């Protein structure tokens, strides 16, 4: 073993020692609540009846998974997530291209486009709600003389619009970092080879941007799947617009049913983990930190 090897190893040990406290705190702060939620999900535990706490095995999971409210909420969540993501990706990409190519006032354009993302969701949601309420709002009477927030389809559409409005800038920002990876040389070479604008976009830019796209889509999917505040403010989950997060909140915080509520939290956690896993599998080779064979 050479001297440099020993030195390297000592340095690595020091590195571990230095970050160990932070790592331990992280595990305690994030790991413990998750484990506790799993533990609670195997119990009948209602804060109102503290003396009736007991271990029930998988009963809570059967209750939740056999319940139509859960599946309605799950369907609504998936719908909101997917539709929102598609719209956001297209808009975000367009916005990113504009911001990337902006010649004058580039900084200003970028800052301005980020304003919706900077506004507190609840505040924005309230303004959406008033806008869509007949009499007080300017949008409600635009399409029909009904009240769009009292019907399921239009309520879901409004929730999606509110979400898209808020988070497209974030998507655009992430995609813009990806655009920065595309070198002018590559584009010029493609142009000389006779590639059309569209071909240059799909065959050159998109593949190079893949890691950035993965990050953008993954982050937004995970975020979108946990949608909560817009729904609570706009409809309070009426007309079957609850997301799984709203449902979990209702059962846990409002209903004080720690068993059922924790079961839902665990299921949401599993769904989110599954989404992340699928994304990384699907986009495997492009995952940040992956090597050329697509292995981590």
């Amino acid at each position, binding site marked *: 073993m050479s001297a440099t090897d020993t030195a390297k190893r000592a340095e690595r040990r020091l590195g571990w020692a230095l970050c160990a406290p932070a790592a331990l705190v992280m595990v305690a702060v994030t790991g413990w609540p998750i484990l506790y939620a799993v533990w609670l999900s195997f119990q*009948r535990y209602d804060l*109102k009846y503290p003396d009736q706490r007991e271990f029930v095995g998988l009963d809570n999971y059967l209750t939740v998974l056999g319940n139509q409210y859960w599946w309605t909420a799950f369907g609504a969540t998936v719908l909101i997530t997917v539709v929102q993501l598609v719209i956001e990706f297209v808009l975000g990409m367009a916005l990113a291209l504009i911001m990337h190519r902006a010649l004058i006032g580039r900084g200003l354009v970028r800052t301005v486009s980020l304003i919706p993302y900077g506004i507190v969701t609840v505040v924005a949601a309230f303004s959406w709600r008033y806008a869509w309420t*007949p009499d007080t709002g300017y949008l409600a009477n635009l399409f029909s003389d009904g009240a769009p927030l*009292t019907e399921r389809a239009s309520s879901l559409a409004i929730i999606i619009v509110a979400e898209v409005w808020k988070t497209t800038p974030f998507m655009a920002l992430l995609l813009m970092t990806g655009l920065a990876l595309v070198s002018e040389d590559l584009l010029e070479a493609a142009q000389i080879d006779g590639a059309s604008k569209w071909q240059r976009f799909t065959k050159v830019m998109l593949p190079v941007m893949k890691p950035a796209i993965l990050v953008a889509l993954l982050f937004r999917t995970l975020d979108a799947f946990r949608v909560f505040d817009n729904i609570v403010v706009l409809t309070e989950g*009426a007309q079957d617009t609850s997301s799984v997060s709203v449902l979990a909140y209702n059962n846990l915080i409002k209903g*004080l049913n720690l068993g059922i509520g924790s079961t839902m939290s665990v299921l949401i956690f599993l769904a989110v983990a599954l989404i992340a896993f699928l994304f990384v599998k699907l986009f495997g080779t492009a995952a940040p930190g992956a090597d050329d064979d697509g292995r981590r």
Partner: protein
Amino acid sequence: MRVRERDRAAVRRAVALGLAVAAAATVTACAPPQSANTVNLYYAPEENLQTVVDKCNDEAQGKFKIVYHKLPRDADGQREQLVRRLAAQDDGMDVLGLDTTWTAEFARAGWVREWTGEDRQQAEAGTLSGPLESARYGGKLFGAPKNTNVQLLWYRSDVVRTPPRTWDDMIEQARRLKAEGRPATVLIPGAQFEGYVVQYNTLLASAGGKLISDDGTRAVVDEGAVRALEQLKALADSGLTSPSMSNAQEDDIRLEFQQGDAAFQLNWPFVYPSMQEDAPEIARNVHWARYPTSDPNRPSKVTIGGFNLAVSAYSPRPAASFDAALCLRSAENQRFSAVKDGLPPTIESVYAAPEMAAEYPMRDTILEELRDPAIRPITPAYQNVSTVLSKLLSPASAIDPPRTAERMRTEVQNALDSQGVMP
């Protein structure tokens, strides 16, 4: 170089000052000024309650000193804060303002103390039986009713000649008004929330129906419950409601009424003072009547709301807390709150006080309703039951009476057993 260093020192000072301010703020936020006899009152925001608190503190002459902490404005937010802290056995709360529907829940969970002996006698003396019943659980008293509340039918006397006595009559009158092209809308809070369940409970009780057995353990959902469903459905299908009915809460319909297109509004008395201020020309022609009944053969039974004062099980100063609560709800202070904040008193004799006539003109109708009120089912699981009900009732146009009643039976039973999923 010198300049830079001075800058850095300034930055350091600023940071240190900021931290100190932040620390001070945290300390004051977490620890209210404590002394041996401080009673921390956690209560919903009520405009003139601080005056009542000050009066009590003066009269107590050092026996206790109430500090009023405002809970969030909405009922769910209030309950959440209380529940969260009580579940953690927080001993920083002494007197709690409980909505009438929470009393059973808090009592069952062991979060509030029973009222006994002299304190109990004082809380019960002269108090209306309806509000008192809402403060009891399992035959014991857990709260002293501070104020009650009951809904009235508000109508435009310039378009409605005689106020309708029954629900069907109200719809009929509105239909005629609509045909004449006059203000005709019937406003009712129909959003998926507790206030809508209150409306349903009133219709149900007026029809002589029952939702949950008296011991609070079984879902009954009898014929009266179905009848009430039919009536809600009839209103929703009549085309006489506001288009945003299924998204409207009490304050939304108050605002809508003030716009002038409605003939009827079913709401709490708080709308009266607000109308005087916001829409005086409409307010001039607004009258009130007893809430319309479901069954022409008997008067309506209207659901009561209101607040009870309870003493936290974790309060280190129970004796002072009971005293303080009794002072806050004394006849004198209830009269003050009725005149200043529009809150219906729970002590019957207060209604006869001379100032009430001028400031509280609808007191006789309120008292009439309060003498034979409807009470929401008394069960620790009320919150769960209510959430399930509001879901099944909303939107009113989707109610299918026999089928909805069948679903109520199973889902309410699940809620009572804390086994179902809340929507």
